[in-house]
Structure formats: C-alpha cells, structure tokens
C-alpha cells in the first residue's frame, strides 16, 4: 500500500449508523485500511475500512460510535492495515482487546510489526500434528486426546465450569518426555471481569504468568473491538510459535461474543443474513481465526487452540457451535445433566470428539491399547445410556443380565473415570488403568473393539 496519501484528514462524515461510519469526499483509501478517528472532544478511536468506492468509505469503528457526530469528527487514513508490534517482551504482559497495554507499563519495544489478520498457512508447509499432550484430565487424555497444534474447543453453557477446565488444562498441559513448557496466550472476549481475573490468578499461582500474554476485552468494553481481540491474540501466538519457536496454548473465551459482534456489523451493513441473523460468511470468518493453529515444517513451535464458546440455550445446532464444530478438530462438550449431578468435569463424552486422537496415540506414542480402550469406553458408555433410558420405562426387571452390567459400567465410568478434582493431575498410566477397571466390569465378549492380544494383557474381569 505504497501509494496511499497517508495522513490526510477527512471531515466529511456522511452517515453514522450502529458501529459504522460512512465518510465522503475521500480521494484515496484502500480496503482494510486502518483509520484513526478523532471525536469532537479530541478523543481518539480506531477503525477499519470495510468497503471503499470512489469518494466514499464505510468504516467500522472498534470502540463504537457513541459520542461521534457528523460535524467535528475527523478521520485519518493511516495507509496501512492494522498491525501489532510484537517481541519477546510481550510475555508476562496484559493488553486490552486491541493490543494496547492495559497493565500500566509502556508499549513493548517492537521486534516486528505484524498484520493482525495473518495469512493462510500453506497446507503444503503444515506439519501434521502428532504429539500427545497430557492434560492430566482422564476424560481428555483417555478419550479426547489433545495434540500439539490441534484446535479443540470447549462447548459450554452459562454457569458451567468451562473456565475451570480450561485453566486446569493450561496449568497441567505437558508433552510427555519433554521439558518444554507451554506459553499461554489468553484472549478474553466480552467475558466478565471475574472470569478474566480467575484465569489470571490461576496462571499466577502456577507460575505460568511469566510465559503468558493476556488480551482483555471485558463485558463492558466496546463490543466491536471483539472482532480484533482473537486476531491480535493469534498474531502473538503465531509469532511466539513460529518466530520464537515456543509451544503456545491459545485460549479464546468466549467466541459467542465474537460472533455476536460480527452479526452487529453485518446488520448495520444491511447484508442478507444466513441463519439466525448471522452473516453468510460466519463460517469463513470463524475459520480465519481457528485455522491459525498448527505446526509448520522446519519450525519448532506450535499453536494449540482451545477456544471456548457458550451454546445459546445449550443448543449445539445453533450456528456458532455448529460452524465451529465444522472447522475445529473436534469439540469438548459440557453437559448440563452431569453438571447438575455434581460431576466435574461434566464432559458429555458422546457428543465430544477429538479428530486428531488417532494420530497422537498408540504404540510408540502413548500405549498400544490407548485407541481401542478409548473406543470401547465410548461404546460402553453409549450402551449404558441406552439402557438407562430403557430402565426408566420398563424398570430394571425388564433388563437382561448384560444390560444390568452396562448400567453398573456407566455409573463406574462417571464416578471412577470421568470425575476428578480440578487440581488433580493424573498420569496417562493412571487414566488407562481406571479405564480398564471400568471395562473389566463387562463380560469379555462385549469388548468387541479391542484386539484379543490387548484383552489378554489388560482385562481383569470374568468371561
């Protein structure tokens, strides 16, 4: 963007609607260009060009348009897209949702300026993720394995302990056999102060804050800023991973607020909506964030993403969880029933999935029986759920002997395998041991997903 007449100020604001400002009489502005806006009382805001024609530009104002006026508002086109200064000094720091210091300390000295939108990673240069991350949480390690470079979201609902689980993962995550610690990039997107604070404290207590970077857009911060928050966070994550060679865990919470900001802009632009008023490009837009995870050939680092989103009305078919599930490499779904039963972590395993588990486990990586055990646990718990539903109707008397065994296995699964403390860090051996204890309550002939060889070695039940 060499030819823009950066620095020219425009004063002809033609229209202000919602988060948008339409400026007239422009001679040179480019698509996606960063705009600095000065309000009548000399306050500065940032915006970005969404659409540009001869003489006219539509600008999205991150801090919102409250207080802007048709007369007296000035806009300066900065001749560049939105960029973030990055350097190692970012570690241990706290920023606002647009990447400006929020901790009273000065702006870090930049090593580089990076465009916050990033560029698509070339699939030919991706390194396929295969390193098992031990989270110490049985249900994840045993059945929903996370691997380095994966994007695995938590689908939650209001009041459920997604933050506790994400913080537990952030504290405990380790790649077995290496000493490398994860750096944590945390983006709060429209969440409450107490949630952000909980995270910060948790990182502090575990000593991880030194290797963390926090971006905070809280519930009372400008909504449109949320469009940028995950982008600045992921820009930093990519920088730490691919320029400094660190293994980064990026936690983005809550992506539902992000999608809502997007909807607000789309509505203001009077675009034809897709489902539930969300723009037709919601999928592509979410993908532009979620795809910023992975590993790159020839580089040491990795970006592992754990986005968190709350499902409106616990509905997994709502466009936000739905489109997210289509993009991410699985999902950890929290279940209201288990939560009510007081089980932590209340992971609804049947609705959950880790698409990359198959690549991160097995002989030479974890243990030969790992995948089969995981599959069999799914199978057993799914049967147990069916039998439970049946028992509700016909009573236990209407069940066959095998069905009764499944009932027991289901209970044991929830109490002995799924349930654990939020600071309990289990080894993989312990997790698989517990899994076999659950499976051993079933007759051997029921374990049809496990090879005879592994059965002989681990099965402790009776025929």
């Amino acid at each position, binding site marked *: 963007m060499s030819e823009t007449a950066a620095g020219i100020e425009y004063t002809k604001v033609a229209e202000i609607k919602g988060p948008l400002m339409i400026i007239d009489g422009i001679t040179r502005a480019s698509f996606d260009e960063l705009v600095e806006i000065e309000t009548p009382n000399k306050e500065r805001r940032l915006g970005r060009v969404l659409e540009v*024609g001869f003489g006219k530009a539509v600008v999205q104002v991150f801090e919102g348009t409250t207080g802007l006026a048709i007369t007296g508002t000035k806009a300066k086109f900065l001749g560049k897209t939105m960029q973030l200064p990055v350097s190692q000094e970012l570690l241990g720091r706290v920023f606002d949702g647009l990447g400006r210091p929020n901790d009273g300390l000065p702006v870090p000295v930049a090593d580089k300026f990076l465009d916050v939108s990033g560029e698509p990673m070339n699939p030919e240069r991706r390194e396929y993720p295969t390193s098992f991350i031990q989270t110490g949480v049985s249900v994840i390690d045993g059945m929903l394995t996370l691997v380095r470079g994966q994007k695995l979201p938590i689908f939650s609902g209001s009041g459920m302990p997604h933050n506790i689980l994400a913080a537990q993962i952030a504290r405990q995550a380790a790649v077995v056999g290496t000493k490398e610690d994860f750096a944590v990039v945390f983006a709060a997107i429209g969440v409450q102060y107490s949630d952000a604070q909980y995270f910060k404290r948790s990182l502090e207590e575990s000593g991880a804050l030194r290797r963390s970077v926090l971006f905070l857009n809280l519930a009372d911060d400008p909504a449109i800023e949320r469009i940028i928050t995950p982008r600045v966070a992921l820009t930093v994550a990519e920088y730490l991973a691919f320029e400094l060679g660190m293994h980064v865990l990026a936690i983005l919470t809550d992506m539902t607020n992000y999608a809502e900001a997007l909807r607000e802009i789309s509505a203001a632009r009077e675009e034809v909506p897709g489902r539930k008023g969300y723009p037709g490009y919601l999928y592509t837009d979410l993908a532009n964030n979620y795809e910023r995870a992975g590993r790159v050939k020839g580089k040491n680092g990795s970006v592992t993403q754990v986005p968190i989103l709350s499902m409106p009305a616990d509905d997994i078919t709502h466009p936000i969880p739905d489109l997210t599930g289509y993009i991410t490499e699985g999902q950890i779904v929290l279940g209201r029933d288990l939560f009510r039963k007081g089980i932590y972590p209340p992971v609804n395993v049947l609705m959950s999935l880790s698409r990359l588990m198959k690549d991160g486990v097995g002989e030479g990586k974890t243990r030969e029986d790992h995948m089969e055990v995981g599959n069999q646990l799914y199978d057993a718990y799914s049967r147990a759920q069916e039998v439970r539903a049946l028992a509700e109707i016909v009573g236990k008397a209407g069940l066959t002997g095998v069905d009764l065994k499944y009932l027991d296995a289901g209970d044991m699964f929830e109490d002995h395998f799924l349930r654990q403390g939020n600071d309990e860090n289990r080894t993989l051996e312990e997790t698989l041991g517990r899994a076999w204890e659950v499976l051993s309550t079933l007759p051997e002939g029921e374990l049809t997903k496990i090879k005879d060889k592994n059965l002989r070695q681990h099965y402790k039940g009776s025929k």
Partner: protein
Amino acid sequence: MEAKGKIVWVSGPAVKADGMSSVKMYETVEVGSTKLIGEVIRLAGDIAFIQVYESTSGLRPGEPVRGTGQPLSVLLGPGVIGKIYDGIQRPLDEIAQKSGSFIGRGVATTPVDMKKKYKFSPAVKVGDEIVGGSVLGFVEETPLLTHSILAPPDHPRGKIIDAAKENTYEIGQVVATTENNGNRLELKMFHKWPVRKPRPYAERFDPSVPLITGQRIIDTYFPIAKGGTGAIPGGFGTGKTVTLHQIAKWADSKVVVYIGCGERGNEMTEVLVEFPHLIDPRSGRPLMERTVLVANTSNMPVAAREASIYTGVTIAEYYRDMGFDVVLVADSTSRWAEALREMSGRLEEMPAEEGYPSYLASRLAEFYERAGRVRALGSPERSGSVTIVGAVSPSGADFTEPVTTHTIRFIKTFWALDTRLAYSRHYPSINWMQSYSGYLEDVSKWWKQNVNAEWYGLRAESYNILQREDTLKEIVRLLGPEALPDEEKLVLEVARMIKIGILQQNSFDKVDTYCSPQKQLKQVRLMVQFYKNSQKALRDGVSLVDIRAMPIITSLLKAKFEVTDEEVSKLDTMEQEMNDQFSKLGQREEVKVLV
C-alpha cells in the same frame, strides 16, 4: 484488444471496475498494481463485477484492472498427477518456495514443471488424420500412469504433416503439426481448457460397473457405479471427510482428484503425508502416483473456493478422456455453495432460500452432470469415467436446508450420515435406513460375474434383518426387549451383529480399513447363515440364552479386523466351526428332551 479499466469499488473479494466494456464474461483479469488474479462474473455497461482470487486487503479505487482475453483455464498435460494445487491451479509447493510457510499474494507460478523431460512415444505419423481429442502419443507420467497426449477437444479435423519422433522432450515441445485447408496448427504435449466448460465427449453410457471402495456399507449395501454420482451429507464429526479419504485411498480407479474446498488445512496435509506412503493394493505403488489435490482451505480466499470445484472436475475429465476411470471427491460442496452465496451477497443479488442465490440449484446440477461414463472424442476408441462424490455439510445437521435438498435431486447414491450413530461411535455413521443407491440393479451383474451370484440375495436377506430390527426397535423403546418373543429377540441380536461386524468399519485399523469384495460377501453370508441356523435352533427348542452364549459370535464380530483379506479362507473354516457349534447345541437339546 485487452480491456484496461480502473477499480471503482472494493468490498472483500468483490471488486467493481469501470472502463471495461471490451471485457468478456468469465474472462480473467489482473486487478490492481499487484496484479491479483480475478474473474469477471457480471457486466453492466462498462462496469465489470470481478471476483478476486486473492486477498484484496490494501486494494483501492483508481488502481488499474487489465483484461487477459482468456477465460479461467487449467493447463492439462503431464506433471499434473501428484501435485497439490490451490483453487486456480497454482502449485502450493511453488507458492511455498516463493512466499514461505504462509500464502502470500500475487505469486506467479506455472501449474507444471515446464522444464521436466518426459519420454514421448508417438501414436500418430505423418499422413494420419486426427480430430479433436485424438491421442498423439504417450508418456509415462508416473510409474502408475501412462499419460495419453491428446489433441485439444476443439481441434479441427486435420492431416498430420509433421510428427515428433520417439525421444525425451519438455512438455512445451511441438509433437505434431496438422494442416487443414492450408491452416497449420501446432500441437504440444499440453493444452489449456476453460474450467467452466465441460470437456466434450462422443457418447455417454449408463454406468454399470461398481466403484469398489473396500467399504462394506458402500460396496455391499449402497454401491456407487463408475461414472455415477453420490453425496454424503452429515453434521460435523459424522465422518464425511474420513469416508472421502477412504474412497480416495482405496477406490479401484486409475486417477483420484481430491478437492478440499473450504475445509481444514490439516486434512490436506494428512493426505499429503499419508498418500506417498500408502500402497495401492492393486498395483503396489504409492497412492500419490495417481492422485491430484486441489486445496482451497477455509481460510484461503473465498472466490478461489468457488473456482476450485471447476478446476478439479476439468482435470478429472481430462484423465477420463485418456480412457481412465477417475474418481473426484469434493469436501465440502456446502462450502462451495457458501462461496457462491458470499459473492452473490456482495453483488447485492436477490437471494432465494437462506440467502443462497437462485442459481444454486442449476450450478449444482451442472457440476454433478459432469460425472459420467463416456466414449472419448477422437481415435483410437476408448472410454473412461468420472465418478463424483460430494460431501454436504448441512447447517445444524438439518437435511432440509437448501444445499442438501438441491443436491439430492442430482445424485443417485445417497449416504446419509447420522449424528446419533456418530455419538454412539458407530462408524461410518451412514444410516442404513435413510441411505439409498440407484445403481443396485446395474451393478449386480458385475458381482455375479466377478464375485458370486449370491451377492444380490445375501444383501437383500441381511438388509431385511436390519429393516425388521428398525420396526421392532419402536416396541423395545416402549416395552423393553423382554416383551418380544424369542424369534424377534433373535432379529435384534443378529441385527446387532450385522451392525458391529459388518456396517461398522474402522478406517484407522490396518486390516479393517479395506475389505475386499470377496471378504465382504463371505462376512455377509456368515451372518445370514448364523441367522438361519439360529432360527432353526429356536424351533428345535434351543434357548436364546444358549445361542447368545455361543463362542462363535465374538469371532464373527471380530473377523473384520482379525482376518486379513489374504486369509479370507479362514472365514470358510469359521463357517464350519459355526455349523459345528450349532449342531452341538442341537444335540444337547435332544439329550434334554430324552431325559
């Protein structure tokens, strides 16, 4: 004369330029001073509406736009196999060499290596008459594939007045010169073809040979024919991609075109990592030697996603024209439809359902219509096929949404993925009650001639058990299984065995990932045999409890991964063993009766 205009408006991938009255619809244009590639998709006065295949960030009104005079085309010739392209046939490896790990803009590339030399063996000589589509010669493109060098389909009839000798050449080499009424035309080892124009053929046939995929639920229950069309719709995580990967890996076709259209980068990487190491069971060669990848992942520019489908299918047709069976899989056609929707929205067209443009249905029809089994143009006579399988990603897994409902109208095999099956880890989660195949009768002859005449009957008998179970399930849900008579409980039991032993197939198990037609048939026969034996045993007074306790059941259920294709005769032994166990059960009953 090539059009020269100026940008007047930019919004995401959509650009308007004026001064473009001489540009043609679907002409490619260079947009802006960085020469981004775009395509004209609407004309109004001297304003051209352009979709730009690269990020338009930083583009501004006033920048130049230049017509190229050419429609969006692909280069067809040796060197295409084994490549990974973006949506407009730019090789991703070359882009990586020029712009690093992240995809930059305005990177100039060539689709194939123009410097690579191939050994060319001529098929025509001076004096021969050729027409469009005729074979001019052959080169070994990969050890798996002898590539026919074709005259472009629109080449006029002409006499060869000069022909290259057998030798090694770069693909830019003129290998034949024709003359017609004094017009001379030079033919190279490659030609270009516009992606939006189906390649013509001489004649179309009805598909009748099944595409063998090694997936039991597909081959045995819902087969697709070579040259046929199929769709696999399903919510997220139900197994669309895994199924398409399985087809790309194991289908008995000569060439595979895999289009990753608006999906994950890692899934393309997975193919790139896996395929060079996977060995084709028929030829013993790495699968990459027959595969072409077109990758426009979800975070790559959305307009190129729209084009990727056409780029892929044109490449597929080209190999079809050599007389090969080609399989094209597209994951996911819904993302392509969304790209259409996004462009249409930016151009403020009148939307139809859910914001999709009104031409969604006709575009889908045109795409699936490019599948088929055909006799190619020109000589010698040869026939080939393009089979198209498209994944569909319905929002909220709701099959009544527009992309699914329109797709269903244009395909003949329907594999309906079921979220509930996926939740219970029944993979592939293809619902056997909702799915169908329009090729069943057509392919039964092949099974009869090549595997066993029993196929059709065994398929029907086993399917019948599943259908009965489906009705009984309702009663069980209300009253519990104990409310059923033993004969019906038996149906439930055998249906369970068919589900676990046959319908479920683990793609990630070394053995189970591919199941030969012979093994499929024997497995089904075992199940049907088990059912018949059990029915008889029940009539003879054997209790269902005793039948359920038979040790053979576990062997039947695990045969899929414990018995390899090479040891398929073990299944005959298993049948013997089963019969023995049944006769022992029967004898015990007789003893009881005597006592």
